[in-house]
């Protein structure tokens, strides 16, 4: 097992990304090592253990959220990395980008309330296939983290949803918890808040773990989640 400090983590930065620094700070706090920020025009990635696509409004969310970012040069490198079984995590806008690249199935459409929504939500950790993103979290664990998005309403065909469900690819579902308001903030199918790929190596999620890394910021469940992932990837 390698130590967390020796992990090589890249955070991709697109014009309009705005949670890149937050993610960098969170990861550095947990690993003691600053991840590298990789500009979208780069066409290759150094060998890495994890690629993270952070939240924000890449390319202004114009056309479709994540669409323009998914065609940026650096994405080819991410696809190669994923094809080699490399781990990839997308948060919020990063999740939208991953759907646009096809690394994960489905789409995120506009919230059912047609409004941007920023608040804490509670998610339930689901029983998933073997995945570094969930293996250190017990099924049924409740995590409270903020969401902040306008397009977080997960949609896929009935067949696709059934497949995700049966394969254990649903990682997080919105669940009633201490947070204010309805459990599902956006109308997402099957209350999906996060999914993993068929091989478990790619994850997309709407809640922002990097914003929930200490009690003064309103909670540490994001740190719990990230720590679990990092340890799994390091082992």
């Amino acid at each position, binding site marked *: 097992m390698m130590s967390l400090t020796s992990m090589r983590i890249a955070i991709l930065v697109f014009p309009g990304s705005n949670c890149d620094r937050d993610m960098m700070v969170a990861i550095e706090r947990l690993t003691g090592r600053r991840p590298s920020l990789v500009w979208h025009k780069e066409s290759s990635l150094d060998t890495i253990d994890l690629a993270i696509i952070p939240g924000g409004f890449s*390319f*202004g969310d*114009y*056309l479709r959220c994540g669409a*323009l970012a998914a*065609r940026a040069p650096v994405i080819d490198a991410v696809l190669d990395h994923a094809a080699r079984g490399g781990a990839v995590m997308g948060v919020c806008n990063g999740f939208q980008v991953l759907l646009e690249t096809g690394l994960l199935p489905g789409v995120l459409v506009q919230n059912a309330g047609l409004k941007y929504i920023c608040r804490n939500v509670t998610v339930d950790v689901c029983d998933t296939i073997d995945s570094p993103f969930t293996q250190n979290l017990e099924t049924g664990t409740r995590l409270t983290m903020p969401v902040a998005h306008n397009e977080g309403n997960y949609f896929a065909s009935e067949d696709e949803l059934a497949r995700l469900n049966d394969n254990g690819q649903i990682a997080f579902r919105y669940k009633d918890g201490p947070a204010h308001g309805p459990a599902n903030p956006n109308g997402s199918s099957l209350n999906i808040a996060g999914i993993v790929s068929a091989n478990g190596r790619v994850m997309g999620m709407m809640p922002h773990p990097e914003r929930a890394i200490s009690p003064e910021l309103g909670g540490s469940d994001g740190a719990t989640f990230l720590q679990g992932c990092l340890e799994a990837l390091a082992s």
Partner: protein
Amino acid sequence: MQVIVNISLKEGVLDPQGLAIARSLNDLGFQEVDGIRVGKRIVLEVDETDEARLHQRVAKMCETLLSNTVIEDYNIDIPDGQ
């Protein structure tokens, strides 16, 4: 009947989305793209068979809700042969 409402930004109104998409297309090798304007295309199913009345009602919907007449223009298209 089916009605199509096309909504476009008035001339001169900045379309940041169009600019960003055009730039991306250029970057992807579509150098021939000179400009893009993005509008909406709203397809309505309306329970009304009289074309004149349909047109008038849909115009009212555009003025009331569908278009932001300060910055947008709209046009109404009732496809033939319905």
